[in-house]
Structure formats: structure tokens, C-alpha cells
């Protein structure tokens, strides 16, 4: 017989009731939505994912034609999002680290420049930055017929950055991709710089003095003493910034890059399946974020200092 007086029993009861109410709420919302949709004659279901898409996509990582399914189109969108996000994450980590360390340098010019950079890029909304880079790449670049070029290896024009020698028939990076990756990397680096700076500053001065006293060079000091201890404080906010980068890549719709949200918009309009498309996009971003966060948590556990 369960004893109400026991705190453990009470806790279990309350939690069961709370979870029960949550399930009832979600169930009711789903039932209400589906019922409303059925009543108004709005068709629902995920079967549209197997229908032919009927639209082309400007750039994709594998050959996509309009006869392929909506499901394939979503996959193209996902790969495009991942392409931008991965590059942005790598670049922002490296560049952000340099900036963060530069903020603490003894050279006043380096310190000032890093400070100015961080303040500038953190405080202007990302959408404006992306639009600005896009305008630069598209308005100020020359026409395709007269590109800026370095011999025949690198050509820059309104069509993008062309590298004809790469891969079988050359690689062209479109202005949309360049503007998004570049803008996103620069923006996120500013935040990463602050995260890294605060992590480094959190290491007690005693550690730095001890490192000095045993004759380590500044670079050795950073690599062997400061950074390992700073990583404890850096990794969780850094995870945040990575997740932000992934989600911010959805601003691609504003500058014409066919990422997941853009493809979902087109599909939504053509099939009318608003609830399903938004649900897919939400599920994908949630999965990406959870994967990134768990990866970083694993890294965090390994990097964490074993306290005695």
C-alpha cells in the first residue's frame, strides 16, 4: 500500500499526473488540429513526400531534377543547410579563437582591432549583414563576361566564385552560398571570440604565473596550461553558438540560397500541406541541434578536468 506520507511516493504521483496532463494536452492539440483540418476539407498526411516535386533547385550537392520526389527535394535542402552550417562552424571556431586570444594580446593595435570587430559584428542584426554581403557580391562584382580573375584558376563575377580546375567540370560557388557562409561565419565568430576570451580569463592568474615561473613560452603557456583549463568554461557556450549558427542559416531564404526552409516554403505552397512541412523542418532542426549538442557534451566530458 503506497504511503502518502512518504515524500518519494508523493513525488512520483505528482510527476505521473503532470506527465499525464502533458500527454492529454498534446493529444488534444493534435486531435483538435487534425479534426479542424478534416472538417474544413484540408487534406493532410505525409504521402506528398513521394510525389514528384515539379520544381528545380538552383544548387544541390547531388543531381536533382524536377521529376524526383518532394522527399528528395527536402534532402537537397538539408544537405545545403549542412554544407553552410559545417563550414560556418569550422571557420567561426578558428577565427573566433584568434579574435578571442587577440583581445587579450599585449599589442594595443591587435587588441583594439579585435575589440572593434567583436562589437561591430555582434551588434548588427545578421539579416542586415547577409543582405549587405549579398549586395556586395552581386552589385559590385563584374558581369560574367568580364570576371575578376587570377590567371584561369580563380574567377570572380556576378555568377559567383568559379574554380574551373577543381573536380571534373569545375566548381562554382554561387553568390548566395558565399554571402551566407561568409556572413554567418563572421557574425558567429564575434560571439565565439567573446566566449573564448571569457574562458581564458577565467583561468586563475596563479596558473599563468606558475607557467611563467617554469619557463614556458607564451605559446606553450596557452596550449599546455591555459586552454585545457579554459575549455571547461568554453565548451557549453560554444555549443550554444554552434546551434545558433545552424538555425541562423535558415536566413538563407532572404538571399535566395535553397536551404531546407526555402525548399519547405516552395513545397508548402505547391502542396498546401502547411502543418506537415513546418513539422518536418522543426523535426530536422531539432535533430541537428540535439546531435550537435550531444557531440559537444561528449567532447566536454572528455575535456573536463577530473577533480580530485
Amino acid at each position, binding site marked *: *500500500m*503506497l*504511503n*502518502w506520507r512518504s515524500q518519494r*511516493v508523493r513525488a512520483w*504521483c505528482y510527476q505521473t*499526473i503532470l506527465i499525464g*496532463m502533458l500527454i*492529454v*494536452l498534446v493529444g*488534444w492539440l493534435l*486531435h*483538435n488540429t487534425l*479534426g*479542424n*483540418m478534416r*472538417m*474544413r*476539407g*484540408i*487534406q493532410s498526411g505525409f504521402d506528398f513526400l513521394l510525389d514528384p516535386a*515539379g*520544381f*528545380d*533547385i*538552383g*544548387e544541390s550537392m547531388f543531381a536533382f531534377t*524536377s521529376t524526383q520526389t518532394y522527399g528528395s527535394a527536402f534532402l537537397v535542402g538539408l544537405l545545403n543547410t549542412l554544407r553552410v552550417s559545417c563550414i560556418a562552424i569550422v571557420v567561426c571556431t578558428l577565427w573566433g579563437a584568434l579574435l578571442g586570444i587577440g583581445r587579450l594580446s599585449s599589442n594595443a593595435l591587435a587588441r583594439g582591432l579585435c575589440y572593434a570587430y567583436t562589437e561591430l559584428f555582434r551588434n548588427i542584426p545578421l539579416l542586415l549583414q547577409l*543582405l549587405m554581403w549579398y*549586395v556586395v557580391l*552581386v*552589385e559590385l562584382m563584374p*558581369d560574367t563576361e568580364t570576371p575578376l580573375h587570377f590567371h584561369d584558376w580563380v574567377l570572380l563575377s*556576378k*555568377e559567383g566564385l568559379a574554380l574551373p580546375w577543381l573536380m571534373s567540370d569545375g566548381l562554382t560557388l*554561387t*553568390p*548566395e552560398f558565399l554571402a551566407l557562409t561568409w556572413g554567418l561565419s563572421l557574425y558567429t565568430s564575434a560571439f565565439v571570440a567573446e566566449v573564448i576570451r571569457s574562458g581564458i580569463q577565467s583561468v586563475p592568474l596563479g596558473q599563468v604565473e606558475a607557467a611563467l615561473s617554469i619557463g614556458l613560452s607564451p605559446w606553450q603557456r596557452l596550449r599546455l596550461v591555459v586552454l585545457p583549463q579554459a575549455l571547461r568554461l568554453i565548451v557549453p557556450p560554444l555549443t550554444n553558438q554552434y546551434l545558433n549558427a545552424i538555425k541562423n542559416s535558415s536566413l538563407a*531564404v*532572404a*538571399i*535566395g540560397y*535553397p536551404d531546407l526552409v*526555402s525548399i519547405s*516554403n*516552395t513545397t*508548402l*505552397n*505547391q*502542396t*498546401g500541406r*502547411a502543418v506537415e512541412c513546418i513539422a518536418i523542418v522543426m523535426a530536422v532542426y531539432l535533430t541537428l541541434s540535439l546531435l550537435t549538442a550531444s557531440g559537444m557534451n561528449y567532447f566536454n566530458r572528455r575535456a573536463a578536468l577530473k577533480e580530485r
Partner: protein
Amino acid sequence: MSLTLAFTRKILSLVCLSALVGAFPAWAGKTLDAVKQRDQVVCGVNTGLAGFSAADSQGKWSGIDVDICRAVAAAVLSSADKVRYVPLSAQQRFTALQSGEVDVLSRNTTFTLTRDASLGLHQTAVTYYDGQGFMVPAKANIKSAKQLKGATVCVQAGTTTEKNLTDFSRTNKLDIKPVVFEKFEAANAAYFSGRCKAYTTDASGLASIRTKEAKNPKDHVILPELISKEPLGPMVRRGDDEWLAIVKWTVYGLVEAEEYGITSETVNSLKNDSTDPVVLRLLGKSEDTGKLLGLDREWLARAVLAVGNYGEIFEKHLGEKTPLGLKRGLNAQWNKGGLQYAIPIR
């Protein structure tokens, strides 16, 4: 274990209440009743498309889609000013209508099977027969859309435009690369900056964009091909046949008014002086067609008085004297070589 009875009752009643509320339709009731009670028609329009629905610097809306809403308001509520305009993007428009946020969607929306059959919405009557076309810079020396092989084409997201572009590209083996923007201002900017070789949207939209956005409209050419049929018109929700009839017959009424020579200036004099039985019927002098729609006999007379007949609406917003300079073309009356064929009001 003894959960108090009161506590158990509270939980159970909460669960039962939620189930009950879920069982009733969240939206019930006829649109006409709601409109009459609110004394206002809520009209979903474009965020800004010259000639169709655009707000000026004072916030006053104008365009043919706006005038249709005003005509409906005049017919139902006796005043064309009893309208609230809700600007909607291409992504929001159907959800706004489905959920009840707007009563009628008058937003240059193409009638298609998908939209009529699977969205819980209904098409009413076509107000503008359009087609999709291309605009290219004059210096590109392109005379036909079939010369756009491998071209990058700027297009706005969330419209029938993308699908038509793909169909055209496939049929003519052009391998066109679309660059798709969410906002149509961004798509315009990209085309005019030279990013894309061509711009595609409905032909009426092309004329409007060339006039408004190009530094020199003569530098851009609208190609002659229309690659699709785009019949545009207002849409309403399913399950409300009364409201559907009112919107549909308002459109037909305005077209038939033009066919029989009733203009906003002559409405009142014709009411008293006309001997044409069709005119007398349209104006409610001889028969009361309004009663059948749930309105009064002067419904069409008020609508024409407020916004003019179809021809007047066309001339005011899209015609040759406007910056758009569109000819009647497909939108002329059926007996003048066009497709505007009002189903008889009798």
C-alpha cells in the same frame, strides 16, 4: 494512498472539459453572419503589388483586388469603406484564409486544382486572366524565352511561378537554374543588379515591376511568350456556400454591368430612366436577385456605384493610362474578343 477526493475531482473535470472542448468545432458559424455582426469585411491582400493591391504613403489601399473587396463590402454592408485589409505574404495567404483570419482572399491568387480541391478553400470567379512571362535586359539581345538555355532566372518563392518555370525548362530542354527568394523585393533587386539573366513572374507583375523598380524601364524587355495560364481571382473558405455565392456573383455582377453599359456615373440615372430589362434586373428595379443571395435588392447597384464596373476598375488600376499600361487583351468582354464572360444574373 488517499488522494483527496477534491483533488481527484479537479483533475478529472479538467481532463473531461478538454475532451469536450476538443469535440466541438473550433470554428463554427457562417462568414456572412460574422461579417454582418462585425460590420466589416476582412480582406486578405498583397503586401504591395501595384495595380492589384498596394498601399500608398497615407496607408490607403488601391488596386483591382482591393476594389473587389470594396464591392463586396458595398453589396453586403452598404459601404465600400467597411473593409479591413490584411497584407499577406505568399506563404501566409492560404493559412490566413483557412484559419478564419480573413473572410476573403483577394490577393492575385491563381486558380489551380490543388488550391480548389485540397486546401479547404474554393475559387470564386476570375478577375484577371494572366500568364507567366519573362523579363530580360535589352542588351542581352534575347528575343524569345526559348533562348534562355542554362540561364539563371530570379523568381519569388511560394508561388506557381517555380513549377511553371520548371515545366517550361523541361519541355524546351533549357536547364534553367532558378534563384529563389522569399521576398519579391529581394528577387527584383537581384535581377536588376545583374545576378540573373532573366526574371519571371505573371506578365501583369512584370509590367508593374519594370515601371516601379527599373532605373530605366526602356533597358528591359518583356518577352512575348506566356508560358502558363494564370487565372487570378478571389478565394473563400469551403463549407460556406452562401458567402461563396456572394463573392462570386459580385465579380460577375461587375463584369455584366460593363457588358450592359452601367457605369458608376450612370447607375442612378439608369435606375430611373432605363428601359432595358437586363439593366433593370441588375439594378434591382424589376427583380430582387439580392434576396436569393441573402442581401437586399440594391446589392449590385451599390457595388457599381462604389467601385465602378469591371471596365472602369481595369482602366483605373491596370489600363493604358496607368504606369502599368496593360491592354485589355484576354480580359476584354467575351463579345469583344476577350475571356470575361459573366454568367447571366437572372
